[in-house]
């Protein structure tokens, strides 16, 4: 039996979940994210005995890790911790074995009543990931967590709790993976990370749910405490429908964050991202860059908010977002916005939605480079700025390889699109 603080939250969340309808998210303009196509009742949590996944091997390679934890469907199927200074275990187990430690942080930034799916996650989560890096511990090798959906019909209610102690350092990667399958699945996730004073955290979220109808509705929050630094890199390379709220909160003076995201959508994928760079204290700094590219008939919306609360002076933060359309049938928007409730801060933002520049393509072709290669190089070059910011060679190679493969898949439609544009101009 789990401790009371867990059970109480489950009960309260269940009430919220049951009282609310499946939401449809609407925004001004053309944008709507609807779950009409999702047959929620047909999905069920699935349990597995052991890990045997080609896709996990393919993504993780043979890089050494400080710890690896894998949840397939509803339960953790693999957990090994090579570095004994840290705690990495299923959250289910941690709430019992380390009840005091978990209770101090558990759901501190994740209210159970902020919507049907966050409530569902709070009520139904199983397995889960708990990572604790004690004060002053420095971990070189990555701590890796994998959320795996192996087959259609799966619902995965996911909760990750990460606490990085004072002056501790670590690199954490979470992967969200599924093989290509036919049929529906749902990953409803909650992620929270607390970077304690002076901590240095390098956090990556790598999502590629494959070509199946995987829906991902998640909330991820990162709290950066006094003089801590967090580099956060969300990478979206696949998912039938993704609706995510990604918030990074510089909560105390001296905290600093660098948030670098990217997405590449294809086919009829639908991606809806809302990120907030929230400054709850003065003397905090932020730097957010998001880049995306769209092919096929995909839809992608990125909205990035800088929010500086009252009594937070001397904030210095910047947000920019770029989106590139590579297909005539793709549609997207990239909206930076700003809420500043105090004077004496520096906050700026910028956003662009564009296409490949025919002059760039012409320029490269005059050097003998064929059109298809020019397009590939330009799109890869467009992403390179953010790939470099990953600051993680293993992940950089993986992302470059996957973008290159996706571009090869889209080559025909991109060529047609560029050709049309050139003739129209």
């Amino acid at each position: 039996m789990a401790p009371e603080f867990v059970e109480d939250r489950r009960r309260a969340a269940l009430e919220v979940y049951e009282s609310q309808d499946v939401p449809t998210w609407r925004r001004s303009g053309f944008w709507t994210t609807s779950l009409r196509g999702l047959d929620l009742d047909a999905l069920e949590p699935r349990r597995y005995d052991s890990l045997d996944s080609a896709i996990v091997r393919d993504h993780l390679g043979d890089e050494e890790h400080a710890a690896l934890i894998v949840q397939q469907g509803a339960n953790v199927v693999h957990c090994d911790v090579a570095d004994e200074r840290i705690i990495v275990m299923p959250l289910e187990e941690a709430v019992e074995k380390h009840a005091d430690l978990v209770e101090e942080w558990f759901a501190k930034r994740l209210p159970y009543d902020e919507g049907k799916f966050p409530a569902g996650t709070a009520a139904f989560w199983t397995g889960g990931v708990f990572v604790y890096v004690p004060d002053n511990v420095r971990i070189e090798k990555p701590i890796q967590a994998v959320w795996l959906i192996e087959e259609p019909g799966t619902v995965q209610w996911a909760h990750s709790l990460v606490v990085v102690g004072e002056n501790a350092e670590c690199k954490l990667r979470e992967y969200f993976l599924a093989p290509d399958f036919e049929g529906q699945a749902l990953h409803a996730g909650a992620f929270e990370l607390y970077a304690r004073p002076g901590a240095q955290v390098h956090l990556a979220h790598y999502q590629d749910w494959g070509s199946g109808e995987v829906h991902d509705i998640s909330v991820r929050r990162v709290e950066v405490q006094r003089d801590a630094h967090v580099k956060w890199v969300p990478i979206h390379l696949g998912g039938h429908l993704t609706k995510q709220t990604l918030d990074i909160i510089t909560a105390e003076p001296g905290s600093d964050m660098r948030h670098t995201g990217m997405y590449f959508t294809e086919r009829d994928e639908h991606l809806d991202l809302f990120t907030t760079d929230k400054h709850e204290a003065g003397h905090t700094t932020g730097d957010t860059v998001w880049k995306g590219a769209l092919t096929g008939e995909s839809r992608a919306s990125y909205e990035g908010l800088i929010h500086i609360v009252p009594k937070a002076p001397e904030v210095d933060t910047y947000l920019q977002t770029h989106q590139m359309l590579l297909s005539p049938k793709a549609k997207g928007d990239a909206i930076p916005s700003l809420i500043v409730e105090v004077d004496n801060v520096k906050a700026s933002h910028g956003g662009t939605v564009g296409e490949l520049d025919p002059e760039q393509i012409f320029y490269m072709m005059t050097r003998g480079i064929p059109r298809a290669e020019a397009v590939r190089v330009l799109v890869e070059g467009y992403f390179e700025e953010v790939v470099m910011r990953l600051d993680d060679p293993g992940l950089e190679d993986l992302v470059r390889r996957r973008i290159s493969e996706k571009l090869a898949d889209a080559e025909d439609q991109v060529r047609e699109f560029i050709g049309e544009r050139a003739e129209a101009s």
Partner: protein
Amino acid sequence: MTLEVQNLHVRTEDREILHGVDLVVKKGETHALMGPNGSGKSTLANTLMGNPSYEVTEGRILLNGEDLTEADPDERARAGLFMAFQYPATIPGVSVANFLRMAMNAGREEPIKVKEFGALLGKNMELLKIDRAFTSRYLNEGFSGGEKKRAEILQLAMLQPEFAVLDETDSGLDIDALRIVAEGVNAMRGAERGFLIITHYTRILEYVKPDFVHILLDGRIVREGGSELADELEDKGYEFVREGVAASGA
């Protein structure tokens, strides 16, 4: 071995800009094409390279007898044609060195060997007085006007085309940069290469002496001659040429 333009008519959007241009550049020759702003100089350069924004409505472009009028820009480049841009595009995320290697390999069966490439690059950077660090910067991103032009000439030196069109390479350069660029061009002149130097001003021609000068006015070549024509233009200006054309009733 020639680059030949025959009765070239070119339009953009709704306006004809070139009204029948004829030009022959033989290998080993350096031609200057001069003209005031709006005369169609850049249109000719872009059309030679196959910029899709320009439409050829009449006439032909031949390289060594092969008709390239409808060819894609990359085919023209591989056939031996090069243009140094007046306003080169920025290629984010691609370093100068990587771009050069890609461009060189585009025209080869076997990719160039790393050592050979490095040696050639070193030699040409020395020629153009380019700093080592330059080659790891993204091509043209944050480059000054002079750096962009030098990067263009560096590509010319690496790619060694049969015919090179220099589109206002001198514009926006200070005198020192101009001299370096001109020396780079002079080092590449020779029996195996033809140049078409497009310019508004005569200054670059003091350093790169042309064999022939053509004056383009309102989309037509109105006067042709040797390098003395550039001197005459320097003294009297384009208005003088314009008046001469008007007087002859052309």
